């Protein structure tokens, strides 16, 4: 089958095809899912190298579950996000023993009003603020507002109710708004 023809095939169909030994399905899934896994784990961990390790481990688990995948039971992405979330949680717990100073980036001097951030720096400011959120709030906010996943799917990933997801994202956003308030000038939002 031409590789392009797989673009329209669902994740689940590709996973089942891979479970039956289809190499093209493996390639399509790798290109489709690895960026999602990488993005989520990088934001959760704040460390690209660790995120790559988590991504490889999560994808390996996906390959291994393929022959046993039960059709219609769960969305592939839901299953995968949950695996990534658990792997990140394990790593964050192990990291808690490390002194914060050892993993934090050097803090910039307070910039003046004229020192506007570049787009990359604004993203970095948001990611720094995300790292300071409680873990569950961080998970919910990243999945909802950056990965763009629906509340019911996040509920399935996190194994909580949709209402609990809404509560976590609302509290997370409030905390982010407050944490970034002192940097609104740098962020280019003015102080109206």
């Amino acid at each position, binding site marked *: 089958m031409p590789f392009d023809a797989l673009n329209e095939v669902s994740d689940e169909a590709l996973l089942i095809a*891979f*479970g*039956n*030994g289809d*190499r093209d399905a*493996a*390639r399509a*899934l*790798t*290109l489709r899912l*690895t*960026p999602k896994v*990488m*993005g989520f784990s*990088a*934001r959760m961990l704040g460390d*690209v190298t660790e*995120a*790559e390790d988590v*991504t*490889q481990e999560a*994808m*390996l688990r996906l*390959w*291994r579950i*393929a*022959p046993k995948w039960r059709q219609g039971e769960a969305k592939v992405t839901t299953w995968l996000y949950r695996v990534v979330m658990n792997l990140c949680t394990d790593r964050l717990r192990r990291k808690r023993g490390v002194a914060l100073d050892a993993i934090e980036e050097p803090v910039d001097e307070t910039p003046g009003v004229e020192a506007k951030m570049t*787009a*990359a720096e*604004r*993203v970095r*400011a*948001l*990611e720094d603020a995300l790292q300071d959120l409680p873990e569950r709030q961080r998970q919910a906010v990243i999945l909802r*507002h*950056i*990965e*763009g996943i629906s509340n019911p799917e996040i509920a399935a990933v996190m194994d909580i109710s949709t209402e609990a997801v809404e509560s976590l994202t609302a509290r997370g*956003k*409030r905390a*982010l*708004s*407050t944490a*970034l*308030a*002192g940097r*609104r*000038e740098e*962020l280019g*939002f003015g*102080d*109206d």
Partner: protein
Amino acid sequence: MTDQKDLQETELEALFSAAADATPLPSSSLLARVTADAETEIAHVPVARPAPVTGIFERIVSLIGGWPTAAGLASATIAGIWIGYAVPETLDGLAGGTWLTGSELDMVGFTASFDSLLGEG
């Protein structure tokens, strides 16, 4: 106080959007590692054997109960043919050499006489 004002919803959304656009992409080495893992795992997948091609002969065999039945049927057929063509000497012996060794049979002795039927009475 103004510099401590929390970010508005729209301002926060702008940051989320910028973050989504700046999603870190997997490196080529990571993609290679993931692909290599898939290759390793695919080697453990049992090869699906193609379904055997069933022709008319296989269907007939399955209809009569499979190969054991077909073998029994073939044996019985061959035995029947052999009995039909071979000279059954033991049967000749049992018959006292009267029926099967070329001695003439007096068919007249076995048939009813029509004479009695033709007579009046």
